[in-house]
């Protein structure tokens, strides 16, 4: 399931949205996960509707959602000859639909026994309470063996392909809980089931469950012991899939920083998908509590060299590597455009702009004693009045040690030179601690010696 990547082959116009990452991201996503992206594109960007539809049609080809495909195919009609070229005809698809139904019936029959046992939620609850909710008990009581479970898994996958994510999720839930209870190592099909469940949760927008599965998958990838190249691939997938969770879940902004800056995943980003740095950068900028990670991020960005196309990382580079405030200001406007046309980031575009401004201002203040407000408003892409009010707010909020010289319309920064005394204090602060530690270490050593 996880291995299915869908390449959206839509003939997208280049000028439609120069910062659109959909084409780069989609190969790393499951076909089903691309649909929300396409929906978003259709609504928010200037892609031609027909081409998006066509992309959708191509996406649907390997899935079992034939009805949906037929619908789109009919909508596109034969008038749009260029767009439907190469796509199967409606008749072919209808034939396929019948085949799908047949297959479904066959599978359903196979898993009937298992389904009956697990269908009744109350019974399952009862079992859980009794502690008989295990594969062994089910085998003893209902005669459900490994073969049944394999069928069950197949059916779940089939349902997922058909677009019945809820059904698939529930089934996979049972499957995972029964076949791979906590502590048991996942085998290949368990691994696939986990990916499937994660996908279903995402598609059901059940972010809590998805976050949980994400953690499980992350551990599973490390445990599974696939060859390094495969692991790298899986990590790349996980990174892309996780975007859905992180930008929708309340705690996602911490999670994304943790995951993306994890060494192994960082490596995956650098090797396979440097464009994900946009998301990481955004997350770091809008996450006020995680300023410490900024340094790491800047380091990563200086190492990457082909990010010129991405305004978000470029912004950070201008600000923290080149100290080119004009450049930062230029890119900030681009960032706004880019974020608003990004499926994942559109919700945090405002927050980003706000925080980015603060970043610029902060850095600016650090190296200036006197700043012209007119200049400042320019740099922050704000009106003069608004900028002044913004600065005043900052001063009042004690975020800024500064005063406004209204006659020259300047912001005068307070000098924050560290005094010699504080320097000495800084330097000697941990001496006593370390001495104490040393003493205790020595004592233990002496004890050992005796």
């Amino acid at each position, binding site marked *: 399931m996880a291995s299915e990547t869908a390449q959206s082959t839509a003939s997208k116009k280049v000028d439609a949205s120069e910062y659109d990452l959909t084409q780069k991201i989609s190969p790393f996503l499951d076909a089903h996960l691309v649909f929300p992206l396409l929906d978003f594109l259709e609504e928010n960007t200037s892609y031609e509707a027909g081409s998006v539809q066509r992309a959708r049609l191509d996406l649907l080809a390997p899935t079992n959602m034939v009805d949906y495909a037929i619908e789109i195919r009919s909508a596109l009609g034969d008038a749009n000859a260029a767009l439907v070229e190469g796509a199967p005809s409606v008749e072919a698809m209808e034939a396929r639909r019948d085949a799908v139904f047949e297959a479904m019936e066959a599978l359903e029959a196979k898993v009937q026994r298992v389904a009956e046992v697990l269908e009744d939620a109350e019974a399952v609850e009862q079992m859980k309470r009794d502690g008989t909710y295990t594969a062994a008990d089910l085998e003893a009581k209902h005669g459900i063996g490994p073969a049944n479970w394999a069928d069950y898994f197949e059916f779940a996958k089939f349902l997922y392909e058909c677009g019945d994510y809820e059904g698939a999720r529930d089934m996979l839930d049972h499957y995972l809980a029964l076949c791979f209870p906590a502590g048991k190592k996942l085998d290949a099909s368990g691994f696939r089931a986990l990916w499937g469940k994660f996908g279903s949760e995402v598609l059901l927008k059940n972010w809590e469950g998805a976050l949980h599965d994400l953690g499980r998958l992350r551990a599973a990838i490390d445990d599974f012991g696939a060859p390094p190249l495969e692991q790298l691939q899986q990590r790349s997938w996980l990174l892309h899939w996780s975007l859905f969770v992180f930008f929708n879940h309340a705690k996602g902004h911490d999670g994304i920083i943790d995951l993306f800056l994890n*060494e192994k995943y960082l*490596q995956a980003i*650098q*090797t396979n998908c440097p464009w994900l740095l946009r998301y990481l950068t955004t997350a770091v900028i809008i996450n006020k509590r995680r300023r410490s990670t900024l340094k790491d991020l800047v*380091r*990563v960005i*200086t*190492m990457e*060299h*082909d990010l010129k196309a991405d305004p978000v990382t470029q912004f950070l580079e201008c600000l923290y590597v*080149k*100290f*080119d405030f*004009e450049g930062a200001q230029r890119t900030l406007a681009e960032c706004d455009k880019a974020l608003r046309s990004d499926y994942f980031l559109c919700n945090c575009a405002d927050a980003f702009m706000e925080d980015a401004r603060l970043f610029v201002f902060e*850095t600016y203040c*650090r*190296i*200036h*004693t*006197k*700043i*012209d407000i007119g*200049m400042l408003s320019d740099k922050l892409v704000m009106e003069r009045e608004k900028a002044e009010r913004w600065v005043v707010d900052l001063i009042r909020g004690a975020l800024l040690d500064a005063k406004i010289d209204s006659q*020259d319309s*300047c912001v005068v*920064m307070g*000098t924050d*030179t560290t005094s*010699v005394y504080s*320097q*000495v204090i800084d*330097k*000697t602060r941990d*001496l006593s601690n*370390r*001495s104490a*530690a*040393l003493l205790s*270490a*020595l004592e233990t*050593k002496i004890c050992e010696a005796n």
Partner: protein
Amino acid sequence: MASSRFWAGSDDDSSEDASDASSVEEEKVKTANRWATVSDSESSDEGERVVKSAKDRAWDGMKAVIAKIGNSKKIGDWNGIQTEFENLNKMVDKAKMHIMKEGLPRFYVRTLAELEDFLFEALKDKEAQKKMSASNGRSLNRMKLTLRKHNKTYESQIAAYKADPDAPDAEDDAASSDDSSSDDDSSDDDSSDDDDSDDDSDASESEKEKKAEKPKKEAKNLEDMDSDDWASSESESSESESEEETGALKGRAKWLKTTVVTTKRVKKEKKVDPKKKEKKVEDAASLASKAKSSLAALKLDEPMSGETFDKKLLEVVASRGRKGTDARELLAALEALAGKAKRSFGYARELGALMHLIAAQFDANRTIDDYMDVATWRSCHGQLGRVVAVLSAHPGVSLGSIDDDDFADMHVAHALAKKKKGEDEDEEEDEKPEAAAAPNDDPDAVKVVGNLLTFLARLEDEYVKSLQRINPHTHEYVSRLRDEAPLTDLAAGVQAYYVRVGDDKAAATVALLRVEHMYYKHESIASAVRDAQAYRAKWGNRGDAHAASRHAAVATERDASKSHPGAWLGAATAAATAPDDEVVGDASASVRKLCEYVYAHGDDRCRTRALLCHVAHHALHGRFYVARDLLLMSHLQDTAYMSDVETQILYNRSMVMLGLCAFRNGLIHDAHACLAEICSSRVKELLAQGMQSARFSDKNPEQEKAERRRQTPYHMHINLDLLECCHLTAAMLLEVPNMSVEAGGAGGHKRPISRHFRKHLDIFNRQVFTGPPENTRDHVLCAAKALGVGDWKTCADLVLRLDVWALVPGAGEGDRVKAMIEDKIKAEALRTYLFAYSSAYDALSLPQLCDMFQLPKNVAHGLVSKMMINRELKGAWDQPTETIVLHRLEPSPLQALALHYADKAAALVEARPAAAYGDAQRRRGDRRDGGNRGSNANYKARHGDNQDRRTASQRRW
């Protein structure tokens, strides 16, 4: 020569004479036999693989010496007798083991007895003795003494011999007397009788007859002398077979039968031959001439059947490597055979012959340090090319390899065929020995000697070796370089073959070989070379074209009064061609393709080397990030020091190229990180670009030779001057501001970035008299001094004045690099200036700074801002006036002391735990490493684990 011709001539006679030889078949058998015997006779001077035992070899050696003694005896050369006698005794000594087993060989005893008699006679003849030369007389006397003493030990045997001198030879080997040996003996007798009766014109013969006491023995001797002791050697061999009883019964029977056939033939021939005996005697002396004659006598121009072809080939090959075989003769014979095969016998035989020919050519140079001369190399190349062409023309054909067993089988099959023909005239004429040797293999596999991959590798090796030896400043070297493209084309063919056969590993090895001949060339050069190559292939030497035609365009109007007729067709052009998997004009794509193939199929070493070549190629073309990522992804830094020396050299080369590439791209930090350790010491050795003078090296001659062997050919050299220049410039740009921080007292003590640079700067500063800069290093050091005081103009002038920048590959690259360096110098000068002199100012205006350092405002602003953020410069911008306001903190003496004290205390605490745990040493080491890690943080960060290049390099050797 004569003997074989003579055999050949006799053949007809014998078939006429022979009562039972009537059919053509029979004739063929005879021919076959003749060849077989020639080979047998040759094997008498060196053991033949299949049939000879050590004993036989010893016996044969002794017999040869005895024959020589006989010769000397005839001319009364006591000197010769004495030396040969000593030789003989030495051999007997050596063969002690066999003698103990077999008893003393009768022919030895016979020799002793004869010598005794001869000596006795000689001593009696006082007059002759007087006529002897002084040395001869002395030898005679000495001989008298030694022989007497010597013969004492063998008294009983000699007595026994004297009692019954006519006893057959075989009785010596009493245990092994059997049909064949008696048969053989009778033949001996026969033949010697024949000799005796028929031959009287020969001088030696007549001399022999004078000493008629033991005519038979003498005749035997003569046979030996002629070294055509067919029968006896044959019988010996068959005896050895039966004695040792190693062979299976079948083998033994076979051999016995063969012997019968051979002896009979010998008898027959002997009967007819004697008339021509004199000729034989004349020429029969030297073994070498015999070997030669055997080759020349193959009558290669004669029409032959496939069967005979195979036999001839086998004959020729059997003589290969044997003492006295003239290599040229051999090659000529093989060449002729190959040509013949090409004309008339189809690919299978041609391949076999070609491969033999190639193998023989590689044999020619004896020591590892010799290189194959160019002509041989080219012919070798041509033949390999032919092999590849044949292989590609016959898809479905593959090469198998013949191992020793196969070879032995071939000989057996050979003999078997002989036997068959002799007995029932089997008509399996066309059965190849190859097929006989490998009946189970698939029919398309042609079994050949050696293997294509090895030959190609050898060929490449010879090519590189020749480049190492030839003086690079000669025309010879340049013309040698022209062979590279044909070599790689050949390799492409070989690779295609291996891909077809499905041997991916071999194909990958070949692909690597191709990459190694491509990676060091810049695309522009590579394409120029390709074009020139194509031109040469089509039109010949460019210089040979008429001057008028060289640069002419195609003339529309052909009027001899206006333009030279030679120019009418325009300048000759030729489109470059390339093997299928190479992209014409796009070396990068070709290299990538080949490397990817190696990555997919090669073994570890191949992959490593391919990767390094790939990195170097990227670096050469300025794609620093691609190259760097490739290198880092491979984690090669961790393992480079564990690989073989050649790979380490390649690693160093790649690393240096990467560093140069970073430098060209203005990535000073990366450049320095890449170059620092290789350039700091022993550059020449690390890059294998020239030897250290022997006086200063601590290597023994063996190591030195090995080093000489792995030298990089001159045309692949990385220019050391440019390298040093880049390295020092990078070090200067990093180190000078760093040092000024120290001097300015702003940042306290800082770790040196480049110790190498600092060392040289120290030496430079300590010079009593500083003249104008002469070499590269002087220039950079002078420039560094200027940079130290912020004088960017002098600095830039000094650095850019160097000629080496012209060596930067790529058109216009040199100027671009110069401009880049100038910008960098300006920026670093600004930084240095601020570090050094900011304490002297209250405020600095940006426009003034920009003016001073000729920097655009935003660049200067960025630089200064960065310094402020990093707390390197204590100050802030006053934005409306564009000035830098410096916050001066001059601590009072007490405060300064307090700070100092705090530092010391911290240092003490830092040192304490280390001291307490007794691993101070390790700690300090760690710290230094840690710092180093910081210096190439770019490389660390990506794959965080400890890939400390420095340690890798330290263990490089």
